[in-house]
């Protein structure tokens, strides 16, 4: 009845055309493979159950033609009812088998898909996450995968079984009476055509509805994360208005979707019943003229009534299939995104650091965000082993970007970043990132204890006891407030725990970077949220622990510059000066401008153009 897909191998997206629904869904085999056998066996039991139900009319036919209308044997009636009972119980048993066979592997497939997507997302570079909103990703991880699971466990099997039942039922009807069978078949043709039309219309709307739902999720997420801004400006109502507008377009799409569905509902409800009406008009004269037994006529109606149900439900399964297809496409869209920042085929291990520490060399580095202007343009900078370098430049000059090139959160567009002579792209990200630690300007904490948050970058192979590392790191970051938390270092912070102030979070993030005891430490304006006296204390302690660690620190203020042995000035995407704070103050006008805002005549001109 429906176009059962031929078991062709899935060609990977080749031509520019959108692949057919079959091909798109066949991709699911990648993940469904472990469950494949049980899905097939489960499908067979479901088929068995369905075919058993088709036996009922045949028993009725025998009962009516035999005992009921002719020989009147009570024993035969009891036997007939007994057969019906046995068939019915067997059907129930097979239904139970289908569920038992498919449900658990189905949920396992869902979990595997969810987990693979999550792993892939973790692997995808920051640049990908810059482009994709969290809501879109979340709706794929939850809603779309749920739809796929429901289809795998229920929709797929029931659609095929329904189709098979319909075919078998029509064969039985044709065998009973070819005239009546043809009447049923004649009704089936428009249904197939309508199902096909419906498929085409529904596909478009289903996709749009899912995308709009994803956008709506993004709006929700922003309204929650940006709640302080909305509160501060009393803009809750405006946000609500925007949200309501988006929700309204989703509503319109959903109603449109229902309209499409209602057309097919009409066809799939009216046609099967209309067939029975016509069959009544055709069959009764046949029976009256003795061309058909009453038992056969009854068997036909009973069969048609049983077959009508799978026919009606084909529309529902079809809709499920199309929904699953849209969901699969959206899922595949993420999974097919190539990880642009990857490990090399033959990674080179980082050499052991020299006696003085690790040397970092950036040469000819250029970087541009996709579709954006060049932020860095031919930058050369060497971080000598064990030294601390401050990088100073105007806001937006690319300091943070520069920092993130070292642990390969972004990859350079051209040029290279080398750590002890090895290009960062030649080693594995894991090895690179165990050698490099970053304290971000936006401190990111995870829902876990303070201890876990601080120790998250610590290599397990390190011999130093964790408690000692933890205590030292917290001390360096002047995070003495931790002792006052309800459970000290075991207090859960982050999303699901206690919320900390900006300065407190910054200190935890700093402690984390310090605890990792990396070969290269990258600090992105690590003291910006601290008050002056705390800042002074942290600076003082940091200077002590930074000895021997090659450090690059983004500085906006003289107090942060104080951490560094020397300063590099970032201007127009290049390093335009390297020296000590005092030297640069005297000789480098741009540096003087950036740190003191005192402008010289030509610097004012520069700032006017470049700021």
């Amino acid at each position: 009845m429906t176009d059962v897909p031929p078991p062709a191998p899935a060609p990977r997206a080749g031509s520019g055309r959108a692949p057919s629904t079959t091909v798109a869904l066949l991709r699911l085999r990648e993940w469904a493979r472990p469950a494949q056998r049980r899905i097939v066996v489960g499908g067979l039991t479901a088929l068995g159950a369905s075919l058993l139900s088709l036996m009922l009319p045949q028993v009725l036919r025998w009962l009516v033609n035999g005992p009921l209308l002719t020989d009147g044997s009570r024993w035969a009636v009891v036997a007939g009812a007994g057969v019906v009972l046995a068939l019915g119980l067997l059907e129930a048993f097979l239904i139970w088998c289908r569920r038992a066979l498919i449900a658990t592997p189905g949920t396992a497939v869902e979990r595997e898909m969810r987990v693979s997507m999550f792993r892939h997302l973790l692997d995808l570079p920051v640049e990908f996450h810059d482009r994709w909103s969290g809501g879109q990703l979340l709706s794929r991880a939850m809603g779309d995968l749920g739809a796929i699971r429901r289809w795998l466990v229920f929709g797929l099997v029931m659609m095929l079984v329904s189709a098979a039942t319909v075919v078998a039922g029509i064969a039985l009807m044709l065998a009973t009476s070819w005239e009546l069978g043809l009447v049923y078949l004649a009704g089936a043709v428009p249904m197939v055509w309508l199902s096909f039309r419906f498929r085409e219309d529904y596909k478009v709307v289903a996709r749009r509805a899912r995308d709009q739902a994803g956008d709506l999720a993004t709006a929700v997420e922003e309204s929650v994360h940006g709640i302080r801004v909305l509160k501060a400006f009393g803009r809750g109502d405006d946000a609500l208005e925007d949200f309501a507008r988006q929700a309204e377009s989703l509503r319109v799409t959903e109603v449109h979707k229902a309209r499409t569905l209602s057309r097919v509902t009409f066809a799939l409800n009216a046609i099967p019943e209309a067939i029975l009406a016509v069959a009544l008009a055709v069959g009764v004269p046949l029976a009256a003229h003795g061309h058909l037994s009453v038992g056969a006529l009854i068997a036909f109606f009973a069969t048609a009534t049983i077959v009508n149900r799978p026919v009606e439900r084909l529309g529902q399964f079809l809709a499920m299939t199309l929904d699953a297809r849209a969901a699969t496409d959206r899922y595949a869209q993420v999974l097919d995104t190539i990880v642009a920042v990857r490990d090399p085929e033959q990674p080179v291990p980082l050499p052991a650091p020299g006696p003085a520490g690790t040397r970092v060399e950036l040469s000819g580095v250029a970087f541009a965000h996709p579709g954006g202007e060049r932020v860095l343009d031919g930058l050369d900078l060497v971080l000598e082993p064990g030294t601390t370098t401050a990088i100073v430049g105007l806001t937006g000059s690319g300091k943070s970007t520069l920092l993130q090139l070292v642990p390969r959160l972004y990859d350079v567009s051209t040029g290279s970043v080398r750590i002890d002579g090895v290009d960062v792209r030649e080693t594995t990200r894991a090895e690179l990132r165990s050698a490099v630690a970053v304290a971000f300007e936006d401190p990111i904490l995870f829902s876990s204890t303070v201890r876990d948050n601080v120790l998250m970058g610590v290599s397990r192979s390190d011999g130093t006891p964790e408690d000692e590392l933890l205590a030292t790191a917290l001390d360096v970051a002047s995070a003495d407030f931790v002792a006052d938390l309800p459970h000290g270092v075991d207090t859960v912070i982050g999303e699901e725990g206690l919320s900390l102030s900006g300065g407190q979070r910054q200190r935890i993030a700093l402690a984390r970077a310090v605890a990792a005891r990396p070969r290269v430490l990258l600090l992105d304006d690590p003291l910006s949220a601290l008050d002056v006296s705390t800042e002074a204390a942290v600076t003082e302690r940091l200077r002590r622990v930074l000895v021997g660690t090659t450090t690059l620190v983004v500085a906006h203020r003289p107090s942060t510059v104080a951490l560094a042995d020397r300063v590099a000035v970032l201007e127009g995407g290049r390093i335009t000066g390297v020296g000590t704070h005092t030297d640069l103050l005297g000789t480098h006008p741009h540096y003087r401008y950036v740190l003191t805002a005192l402008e010289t005549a030509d610097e004012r001109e520069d700032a006017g153009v470049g700021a």
Partner: protein
Amino acid sequence: MRRRSLALLRSLVGPVRTGAAGAVVLVVLSELATAAGPALVAYGIDHALPAMGDGRTWPLVATAGAYLVTALLGGLLASAAVRASAVVSQTILLDLRRRVFRHTQRLDLEFHERYTSGRIISRQTSDLDAVRELLDGGLTTLGSSLLAMMFTVVGLALLDWRSALLLLVAVVPGIVLTRWFQVRSQAQYRASRTSAARLVVSFVEAMTGIRAVQAFRREPATARAYDERAEEYRAVSAEAIRVNGVFDTGLTAIANVTVAVVLLVGGLRVLDGGLEVGVLIGAVLYARRFLNPLSQIGMFYNSFQSATAALEKVAGLLAEEPTVPDPARPVHLPASRGDLRFEDVSFGYGGGPLVLPHLDLHVPAGQQLALVGRTGAGKSTVAKLLARFYDVRDGRILLDGVDLRDVDPTDLRRAVVMVTQEAYLFSGSVSANIAIGRPGATRAQVEEAARAVGVHDLISALPDGYDTEVDKRGVRLSAGQRQLVSFARAVLADPAVLILDEATSSLDVPGEAQVQRGLATLLAGRTAVVIAHRLSTVMSSDRVLVVEGGRVVEDGSPDQLVAAGGRFAALHADWQASLGAD
């Protein structure tokens, strides 16, 4: 279903009562049309067939004709029911979405911090999805299934009441099974929603903190934790499906046994001449059909259960009362002067310890006040109280002599604006982000605000200028640039009282200097409360308060305090030293 959820449901259905009733009528009629089928077949066999033998064709024509009309009408009604119920359910859903969103916005920050953003988001996404699933198909199916069962029994009773009685007997084990299922699956679905929410939280957290996850090689650990939650969610879902399977199988068995019994009893009665064959077949067809709605109810009981659990959580969220309520009789302040007064104010977060033990303070209109002190001294708390993010525990805060709690919220937000360190950008254009300060502002006004904080050149240099879309979380702008944009927001808002809580912390020195110059003109005639760690921001203010442990320990002009040689003087000395560092 709990009372809270029921009340919510009632209030949601209320406004669409007519449409819902219409949809119900359509469903009833279409089920009625469908239920007529077997009776017509039975009539055809028992009456039209013998009539045909007697040479009369009209009973057949009438029966077949009636059947055809019923079929087409049934189809039309069913299709109309689909449309009508979609309109109703989508209207309800829109209403619910709006309510939850609005309520979330109304709730105070204390709630947001306690409830956590991940849970609020999952209330509005996965929980509402569960409700949507129910409304989308489930409710119609549930209603029409129950009706179909009823009509089946009635239809059969009209043919033969004894067979109908058998169906009613079969209902008893059906109800017992349904009750078992109800109890089992309710707990199951609660668990399922909880574990779904946990899964969402860990997903959101990892995606939000992806930089740190990658930089500290937390991919394996994060993935492991996620695996665990995904497995927990899987196990819960699988158990739910299993329970459902037992239910489904049980119902099929009950219904099939019923068919056999109807056949046995009816067949024996046919032999005794107590029943006609056609009626027996009609009874068997009805008995067979009787099972269909029950299994459908089982199928949608799933979504019904999860929607009930989700609805309960949503109702719980909606039942949260903001601790910062809107005034019952708001006092309008169309043009605030910006005179601020703290009278015997004490405050602590939630039920926690006092953060501000006692504060008396008067800030005359137009004064620029700077708050200085260590992190955690209570400076931000003062700012948050002023912006009415929280309400005082004791005492009161007056704006132009009116208690903040009585000021009309719109007027309060216009009069008092706070810029925080955390500069959140929404997806949309830069211009739209600035215009949050004053919706409906012209481009010229937006640009003027941007010029005032010195971010105009930078924005103009972006690919699409003011129309450049900032990515989620404004990733492409640096923290300093984001601060400037959020500063421009505040400038555009043009408030009488401007609160700056570390609002310039991520700016570079020239940026800050620029903002200072902008502020000098901007703040003229405005009350300003500035919290800054950097003294460069503080030195130009009229008055400085040094706060320690929630108490004001020094109060005076910057010069006075430096001269007095207290804490502020020490800070000042540190700062001077850092300027000439190295």
